């Protein structure tokens, strides 16, 4: 370029509207009096448009099915990741936890007097305090998930309130025992505070209420 005042960098950034106010003033003033730089500026702008056309010229086959699949996946909440990937080494430990819970339940049923810790409506929730440990956050007590470490709560925990279906709880073995003759509707859900770690993974849960 023959002009010494406006280099290529300034012209490109001028086309991209990426100049500082001082640079903008300089470029505007110079373009106002330099025909050669005006031509150069126009060339950069033209060349930039041609590059954009070359990119936007690429055909993209639209498929409405892609959007529908995405929407369906969102609606089904399929993307709520499992709380942890299970490493082979963890399987036996988890199996051990399952056995411990089962044993505690069995002992509780056989030896303990019927114990309803709390009731609301027609449902009680049975607590296996002997199995679970607790995490205290902001004065709220969360039952630690068996694979979380209650001694090491996340540095920036968050609490998210969400509805958890009773049927899902049942699927994973949480006992919600009716204390009256009313049969618990499996479509019901409970409101729970879930403690999330810094990585977004659940660390503990605290059931807030149920219907």
């Amino acid at each position, binding site marked *: 370029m023959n002009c010494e005042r406006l280099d290529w960098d300034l012209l*490109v950034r001028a086309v991209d509207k990426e100049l500082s106010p001082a640079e903008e003033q300089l470029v505007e003033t110079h373009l106002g009096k330099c025909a050669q730089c005006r031509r150069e500026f126009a060339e950069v702008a033209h060349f930039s448009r*041609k590059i954009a056309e070359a990119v*936007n010229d690429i*055909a993209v086959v639209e498929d409405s099915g892609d959007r529908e699949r995405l929407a369906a996946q*969102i609606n089904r909440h399929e993307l709520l990741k499992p709380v942890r990937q299970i490493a082979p080494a963890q399987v036996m430990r988890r199996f051990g936890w399952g056995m411990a819970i089962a044993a505690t339940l069995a002992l509780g049923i056989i030896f303990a007097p019927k114990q309803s810790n709390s009731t609301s409506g027609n449902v009680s929730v049975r607590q296996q305090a002997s199995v679970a440990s607790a995490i205290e956050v902001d004065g709220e*007590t969360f039952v630690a998930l068996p694979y979380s470490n209650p001694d090491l709560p996340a540095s920036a925990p968050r609490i998210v309130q969400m509805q958890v279906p009773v049927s*899902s709880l049942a699927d994973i073995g949480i006992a919600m025992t009716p204390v009256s003759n009313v049969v618990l509707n499996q479509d019901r859900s409970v409101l729970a505070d879930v403690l999330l770690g810094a990585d977004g993974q659940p660390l503990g849960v605290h059931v807030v209420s149920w219907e």
Partner: protein
Amino acid sequence: MDQGNLLTIPVVPWKVESVGNSHSQLLLEFYDREQTPLRRYVTMLGIDPETARDIVQESFLKLHEHLLAGGEQSNLRAWLYRVVHNSARNRQASFGVKKTSRLEDMTPAASPVARELTAEEELLEKERSARLRQAMGRLSEAQRACVVLRTQGMKYREIAAALDLSVSTVGENIQRGLERLRELI
């Protein structure tokens, strides 16, 4: 809340009934607006169109997870381009050059402007675009990424966020990329 309300949660991951749908709407609107530019961007990185489509689809699923986890929402466009860019690089690393595309061979989209041109002019335009894409394939990866994101109307700071570069490096990549393209054309 007394201890009596606590549940013992076993080891199996659980399902959540609802966490609100505000982000779902946001995500679908975002999809409508960005999926085509994203696919073009991935294609310009040398990925074949079918794989580009998969990468973009997967990236929106990752965005969904990001939103579910309460992730940062201030610059989702840059976040999405970063995810797409990294996925494209991973795919390239995994299948080498076997499934990459020659940029000059990309099928041009039909455009209203093209219909107004004569057949000869249209052919020349197509050839010119193909030459430009071929030349872009000879830029460094960083230059090409910056130049292509610039064509999508992204500001330098957005490009910087998407590619994890400084704003000044983005400016340099664009400047040198355009210079190189001008030499090649």
